[in-house]
């Protein structure tokens, strides 16, 4: 058999390395290219693996909460909410009503912040350098609210098991209402910049198509699933923390390509503003912490609780052996499972499309690697 020389080979293996401005963190993608067309991809992850699940087995329940923020560091409040809900389910307590409404407000603000960051960085990868400044300016307002409430902008540690630690500060409602009022015209502005723009549309339509059966087969959830046409949101299907009281829609689109995911996330931001407006109208008064013992020792058992994080279904599977430290904490990360579909979506695309697809999956490597 004649030896193949490099002149015979038509496939080029290119490394889109862990240090890359468009891979949203330390993600390594090995591309097998035929010219500029991608034949296959392979993701190498684990550069940000910090062993959060092992840490969880060696900390008490309250001590573990700050670690949980650091997984999806872009939207840390959701992580905290999922963890607190899971431990509260193990303890079979429900958070105080005032705490539940505040949790909804902060979680929806956090969803807007995450989508704003996604929009800015996704547009930046595609080449639109302007939106990132505007979205980050809006994000500043949200992060200021977080900072005034719990003391940190990004790794908030805002919720405690059983409710909240801090009372709402004076002016919380005014700040939130002012933000909502300013946010909607700004979202119109982003749409004006991008949605009708021919470059944007042609870069995004038809790229990274993932239809509904593939989404379900690959376990993809979140805006990607909704863009493929499946009208499913955990906030409506298995509501938690009082979401059943609020009236909002689930935006869906048909085709499941990158442009549809962009539209779905823009619509989700508007729906989040709607939920916040409803929630901030009447925040019930009362205690912020339910009756939870100081030393948390849940009975032996296991639960799986999941929430609708901005990226998808974030699940916590906690096994308790009756002691103060969890026996096993498993985090089901949405970005990890969504990233599996990269190979399916990138087959046959061009290299520039791979960048768009990685952006549209909305991964945060802290969550992929934990």
């Amino acid at each position, binding site marked *: 058999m004649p030896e193949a020389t490099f002149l015979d080979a038509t496939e080029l293996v290119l490394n889109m390395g862990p240090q890359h401005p468009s891979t949203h963190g330390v993600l390594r993608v090995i591309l097998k290219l035929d010219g500029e067309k991608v034949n296959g991809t392979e993701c190498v992850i684990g550069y940000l693996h910090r062993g959060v699940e*092992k840490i969880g087995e060696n900390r008490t329940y309250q001590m573990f909460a700050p670690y949980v923020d650091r997984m999806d560091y872009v939207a840390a409040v959701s992580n905290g909410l999922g963890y607190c809900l899971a431990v509260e389910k193990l303890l079979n307590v429900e958070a105080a009503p005032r705490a539940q409404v505040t949790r909804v407000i902060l979680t929806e603000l956090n969803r807007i912040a995450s989508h704003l960051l996604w929009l800015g960085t996704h547009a930046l990868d595609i080449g639109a350098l302007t939106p990132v400044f505007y979205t980050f300016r809006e994000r500043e307002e949200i992060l200021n609210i977080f900072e005034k409430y719990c003391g940190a902008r990004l790794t908030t540690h805002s919720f405690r098991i059983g409710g909240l630690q801090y009372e709402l500060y004076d002016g919380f409602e005014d700040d939130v209402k002012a933000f909502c009022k300013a946010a909607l015209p700004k979202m119109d502005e982003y749409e004006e910049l991008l949605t009708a723009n021919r470059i944007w549309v042609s870069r995004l339509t038809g790229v990274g198509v993932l239809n509904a059966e593939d989404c379900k087969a690959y*376990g993809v959830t979140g805006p990607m699933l909704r863009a493929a046409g499946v009208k499913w949101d955990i906030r409506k299907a*298995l509501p938690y923390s009082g979401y059943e009281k609020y009236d909002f829609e689930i935006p869906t689109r048909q085709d499941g390509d990158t442009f549809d995911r962009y539209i779905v996330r823009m619509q989700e931001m508007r729906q989040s503003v709607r939920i916040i407006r409803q929630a901030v109208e009447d925040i019930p008064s009362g205690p912020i912490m339910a009756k939870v013992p100081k030393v948390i020792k849940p009975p*032996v*058992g*296991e*639960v799986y609780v999941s929430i609708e994080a901005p990226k998808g*279904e974030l699940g916590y599977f906690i096994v308790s052996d009756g002691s103060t430290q969890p026996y096993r904490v498993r985090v089901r990360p949405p970005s990890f499972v969504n990233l599996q579909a990269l190979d399916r979506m990138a087959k046959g695309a061009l290299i520039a499309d791979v960048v768009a697809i990685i952006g549209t999956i909305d991964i945060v490597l802290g969550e992929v690697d934990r």
Partner: protein
Amino acid sequence: MADEQKPQPKPPAAAAGHAAPKPPAVMATTPWESDLTSQLKEHFGEQILECLSYLGQEFLIAKPEAVIPILDYLKLDADFDYLVDVTAADYPNRPERFDLIYVLYSFSRNQRIRVKTRIPDGFKPQTAVTVHATANWLEREVFDMFGIEFAGHPDMKRILLPEDWQGYPLRKDYGIIQQDERWVKENLGIDSAQ
């Protein structure tokens, strides 16, 4: 107060060790009966060991060989088409050391169930990739963290840790202090900064 919040890792059997005269605490489950369980029991009979429910969350415990047929049946006949998670837990004091857990969800029924099985160390369960494509990376992670190899998996190698890592971190006998000293010394030539 100081005893309860001691930061050193406590071996999990200590909970039973303190209370030597009392039997170790178990999960306070209630039995789960529904038409789904009767269908499953009719189809699989002996291979489904128990159907239980805890805090409103239903799960069934099956024999290891029956898990993939059960997942297949649930997907095709009971519409559980979304595999949410594959994970494991380590109970080193049991002869069947690992607890392998599959979490499934059905869009049409809006119901979430878990399928659990107990496997000993060294057992290679069948892969679920043929039934649900999402099991690919999830099983790779279970292999990486626990050392449970899945037979028939297309790409059974480590996913989060480097390929030449030794040891399986989420097992209970893997010390938390051990961390990355050996790997850093070999690959980078310096001392790990832990």
